[in-house]
């Protein structure tokens, strides 16, 4: 039985190892400085990069985080502080339903309410679609992380004359912050690779654009376009793009961890 669990544990890590090995083998050739600074080249021309898609993805993730993190953290704080109330239970249930919603449905939703009224695809619509996907993920992790903060800390703060809101923000939320950040990063990583909601919102763009009102390129879309093409050099580019996407998520994770490391002595004054 123990041996079986060892085997299962090994099997659980194998896919990741295979994927990384494959990507490095097939895509490393594409990773050159030009890949980050150049625009895509037409078929047959050597070189070229994904500068527009990398920047596009960063813009989309930023919009998504701006939408998903405040709402998700706020909702999680509400759920944790109003346990057992009917509204809280309803919100928690709906949040789980939203979490289970297929991402393509989220794309349709964003298309219906943001793309159609505006009359054109836009980075904003894509970012909002990704942001809405983040909300339930962030809500639940925030709630879980706040719940494990001992109630005695809340009491200690209240007994010192802290107001309720101040207790929630500067004691409870602050104590739970490392866990919430981890949860937020998982959510960012999850939506960074989403393709389906972007198909008819951000749409993709072969040209340089940072205008959130216009269609914008994104790494997952670019990878998709290149991967289904019949050209070998584009396949290499697609694998390179996938490597960059993974690297981006990794860098975001590390940066946020460093930024929220507990820093003693800087909280006052």
């Amino acid at each position, binding site marked *: 039985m123990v041996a079986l669990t060892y085997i299962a544990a090994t099997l659980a890590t194998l896919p990741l190892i295979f994927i990384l090995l494959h990507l490095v083998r097939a895509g490393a050739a594409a990773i050159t400085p030009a890949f980050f600074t150049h625009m895509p080249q037409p078929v047959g021309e050597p070189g070229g990069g994904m500068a527009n898609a990398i920047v596009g993805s960063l813009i989309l993730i930023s919009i998504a985080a701006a939408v998903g993190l405040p709402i998700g953290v706020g909702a999680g704080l509400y759920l944790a502080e109003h346990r057992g109330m009917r509204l809280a239970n309803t919100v928690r249930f709906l949040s789980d339903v939203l979490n289970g919603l297929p991402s393509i449905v989220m794309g349709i939703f964003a298309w219906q309410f943001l793309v159609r009224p505006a009359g054109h695809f836009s980075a904003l619509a894509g970012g909002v679609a990704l942001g809405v996907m983040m909300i339930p993920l962030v809500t639940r992790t925030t709630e879980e992380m706040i719940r494990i903060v001992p109630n005695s800390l809340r*009491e200690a703060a209240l*007994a010192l004359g*802290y*107001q309720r809101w101040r207790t929630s923000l500067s004691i409870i939320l602050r104590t739970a912050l490392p866990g919430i950040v981890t949860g937020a990063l998982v959510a960012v990583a999850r939506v960074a690779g989403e393709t389906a909601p972007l198909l008819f919102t951000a749409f993709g763009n072969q040209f340089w654009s940072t205008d959130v009102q216009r269609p914008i390129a994104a790494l997952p879309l670019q990878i998709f376009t290149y991967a289904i093409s019949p050209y070998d050099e584009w396949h290499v580019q697609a694998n390179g793009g996938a490597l960059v996407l993974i690297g981006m998520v990794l860098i975001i994770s590390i940066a946020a961890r460093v930024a929220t490391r507990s820093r*003693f*002595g800087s909280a*006052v*004054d």
Partner: protein
Amino acid sequence: MEPSIVNEIQVDSRSLGANSIHDAAARAIVTPRLAPVTAAHAAPASETSTSVALAAQSLSAFFGAHAAVRDVDIEMETSRVTAIIGPSGCGKSTLLRSFNRMHETVNGARVTGSVLLDGTPIYGDGTSAIAVRRHIGMVFQRPTPFPTMSIRDNVAAGLRVQQRQSPSRRDTDYIVEDALQRAGLWEEVKDRLRTSAVALSGGQQQRLCIARALATKPKVLLLDEPTASLDPASTQKVEELVYELRATMTIVVVTHNMQQAARVSDRTAFMLNGSLIEVAPTNALFTTPRDPRTEAYITGRFG
């Protein structure tokens, strides 16, 4: 702290190893202990002036429909230590939490009757719970240092919400040092004020929490079984501290430990099933209790 008192406490804690306490033992504990200390410490708050710092009148505290505290009348004198003893679930902690309006932070909890702080009703219309808690400090059973803050920031935590204008960095440093000195922790932590408070030992953490409560200069300090989670050496330090602090403030300590009540308090209140059975000078309560239920409890017949 004079060495004589330290020695006495050590003698006491050794003599308290026995499991059950009999009349004679209880007297032996109390009598030699209180006499010198009362003379040494209670002198400033002269014998005649017994102004009341905190008073409860017909105070009842409820959780939903259940009354955890019933119709309690009690007066806590200025610069005295009042101990509240009683078996588990007798309502002593709830009573204590009614004194700084912490009781109402629990869902469905409410209070009837009144509590007066220097004659001002703390449950009066227009009196905010926040303001009350800024005048009445509280320390809990388990140490509760804020884990995201340094030692210094923990002590200064209450200052930030006290005034509209937080004290300057220099003033804060001064207040932090003063509070840590008074809590008897300064020498142990002065070289690591900027390090994490959770790295301290349990006893140090509890004294840190006392320092945190002292920093805001409360008139009254409430201690809810402050040594229940501490080892004997740390317990002794906290008890010595309580003795020193009462020169400048009124202290109410809830304890399930009768020897502790005998060691640290001037007056002791005995509670049972939510009701206050008897309040008397500690010496008198432990030696000549008036109520048979008090006698039964302090002699170890139940509880």
